[in-house]
């Protein structure tokens, strides 16, 4: 039986304040020309309507070491630009994580206040312990990147300074 407590443990919540407009943050999350510039550096393909498909592609650096073309797939559940995006999200690059199935990812982008916008990421990872470990940064030493904290830190730096923290070929994808 799944108790409420089990569900809670499997939810990860991340928040960052960024000196940028909600629209700029929305674009950085949904548009491939932005998603390739921070974090894992892959292009996103998103059809922004309920039922639309989402694909997170691997970066060139990842493909160069033998990764498949698609890292993440999913389906849009709810979309309200530039404030709210809910989708299913499954890591397909790794067999075990793919077998954990679809998780649920929510982006909440607040109103701009004093030049700053609040971005909250809520990832419901019920039944996906290996993916949860990856996204919490627990596999960074294995060259798997630092998960959501790392991605959001990099996103903040990109939007505020125009440059990513990590050169894209610096990610050691094994």
């Amino acid at each position, binding site marked *: 039986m799944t108790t409420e407590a089990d569900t809670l443990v499997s*939810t990860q919540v991340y928040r960052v304040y960024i000196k940028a407009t909600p629209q700029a943050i929305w674009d950085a999350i949904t548009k491939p020309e932005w998603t390739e510039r921070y974090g894992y550096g892959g292009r996103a393909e998103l059809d922004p309507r309920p039922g639309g498909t989402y694909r997170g592609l691997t970066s060139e650096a990842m493909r160069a070491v033998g990764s498949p073309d698609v890292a993440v797939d999913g389906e849009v559940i709810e979309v309200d630009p530039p404030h709210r995006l809910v989708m299913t999200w499954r890591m397909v690059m790794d067999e075990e994580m793919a077998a954990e199935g679809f998780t649920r990812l929510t982006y909440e982008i607040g109103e701009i206040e004093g030049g700053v916008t609040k971005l909250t990421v809520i990832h419901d990872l019920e039944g996906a312990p290996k993916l949860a470990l990856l996204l919490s*940064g627990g596999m960074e030493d294995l060259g798997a990147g630092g998960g959501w904290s790392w991605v959001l830190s990099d996103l903040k*730096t990109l939007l505020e300074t125009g440059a990513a923290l990590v050169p894209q070929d610096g990610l050691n994808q094994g």
Partner: protein
Amino acid sequence: MNDDDRVFKALSDPTRRFLLDRLFERDGRTLTELESELEMTRFGVMKHLRILEQAGLVVTRRQGREKLHFLNPVPIRLIHDRWIDKYRERRVSALAELKHELEEGSA
């Protein structure tokens, strides 16, 4: 006080670090759950949680009638990426300069 100041101030207290450790073990807890692990009044725990929330280290979300507390590691990551890495780079470049100077000197 800027964002980094609030994070360092929040982390400077052992009770607050204890609360973060409890959330690291199991995230999404209520005030009642967190309070049960500390020899402290409910008001005292609330005060610490508020400082953690103001520093961005704890994010609360409502679920039904309950308010749940989640650990938000992003502010610590930001300090790591932008502040600690800066010194690491400087040290590397200082070593590179030293090497350069030594090699120049021996030539």
